C-alpha cells in the first residue's frame, strides 16, 4: 500500500477545513491568525504533493512564494494586532465594532 498524492491532498483538505472553521469560530484575533497560517500550510502541502505527482518543480516554487507572502502578512498583521491592543486593550474581534455605523 503506497501513499499516493491523493492522500496528501485529502489531508491538506482536512487541515484547510480545520483552519477555516477556526477562522470562523474563534474571536481571538491571534487564534484567527494562526488558523490562517494553518490554511496556508494546507495549500502548500497540496502544492508540493501535486508537484511531485507531475514530476515538476513548479509546485515547490509556488510554495516558496506563498511562504514569503505569508511571512509579510504575519508581520503586518501582528503589528496591527499589537497596535489595536495598545488602544483598545483587547484582542477580541467582537469588541472592534467601531466601523459598524
Amino acid at each position, binding site marked *: 500500500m503506497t501513499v499516493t498524492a491523493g492522500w496528501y491532498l485529502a489531508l491538506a483538505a482536512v487541515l484547510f477545513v480545520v483552519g477555516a472553521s477556526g477562522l470562523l469560530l474563534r474571536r481571538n484575533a491571534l487564534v484567527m491568525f494562526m488558523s490562517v497560517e494553518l490554511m496556508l500550510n494546507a495549500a502548500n502541502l497540496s502544492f508540493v504533493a501535486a*508537484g511531485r505527482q507531475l514530476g515538476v518543480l513548479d509546485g515547490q516554487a509556488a510554495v516558496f512564494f506563498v511562504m514569503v507572502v505569508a511571512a*509579510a502578512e504575519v*508581520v503586518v498583521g501582528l503589528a496591527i494586532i499589537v497596535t489595536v491592543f495598545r488602544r483598545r486593550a483587547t484582542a477580541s474581534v467582537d469588541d472592534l465594532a467601531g466601523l459598524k455605523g
Partner: protein
Amino acid sequence: MVELVLFIIFGLAALFGAVTTVWARNPVYSALGLMLTLFSVAVFYVSNGAEFVAAVQVIVYAGAVMTLFLFVIMLVGVDRAEDRRENLPVQRPLALGLLVLFGAGVLVAGRFAWVTGSGGGRSAEGTVEALGSELFRRWVLPFELTALLLIIAAAGTIALGLFRRGEAEAADEGEAGEEEVAP
C-alpha cells in the same frame, strides 16, 4: 512502507495539532499545536522530495513566525475570558450538513485518477540547486518582487510601531477616556 508509516504517524500529529490550534482556550496552546502541525507538514515535504522547502518550513515557519506569535501573545496577554456563547439557531445544522457534503466531495474526488500530465516523473528533487536554478531563471521577476514585498512589510511594521505617542493620544482625546491602556 516507510512512507505509509510516516504518513499515518505525522498525519495524526498534524490533525491533533490543527484541532488543538482551533480548540485550545489558551492561545499559547494554540501556538504549540500550530507548531506541531508545521513540523508534521515539514516531514511530509521531505517524504515528497522537497528538502529545501522542508528546511525553510522549519526555519522560517516553526522558527521565526512562531517565535513572533509567541512574542505577541506575551505582549497582548492571554485572554481567557473569550466569550464562546453564540446565537446561531440555523447555522449549526447547516454547517454540519455542508461539512458532510464537503467530506463526501473530497472522498469522491479522491477516487478519481487525475491525469493532467506525464506524471510519475522523479525529476522533481527539491534540492537547493534544482530549486535555485528554477527560481533564478524562470521566476526571477517574482523573486525580486518578493524582496520588494518584504521591504514594504518591514517598513509598514515600523510605521505601525512608531505611530503611538502624540497622534494616538491626540486621537484618543475625543474618544472615551476609560479605554486608556494601563500597561
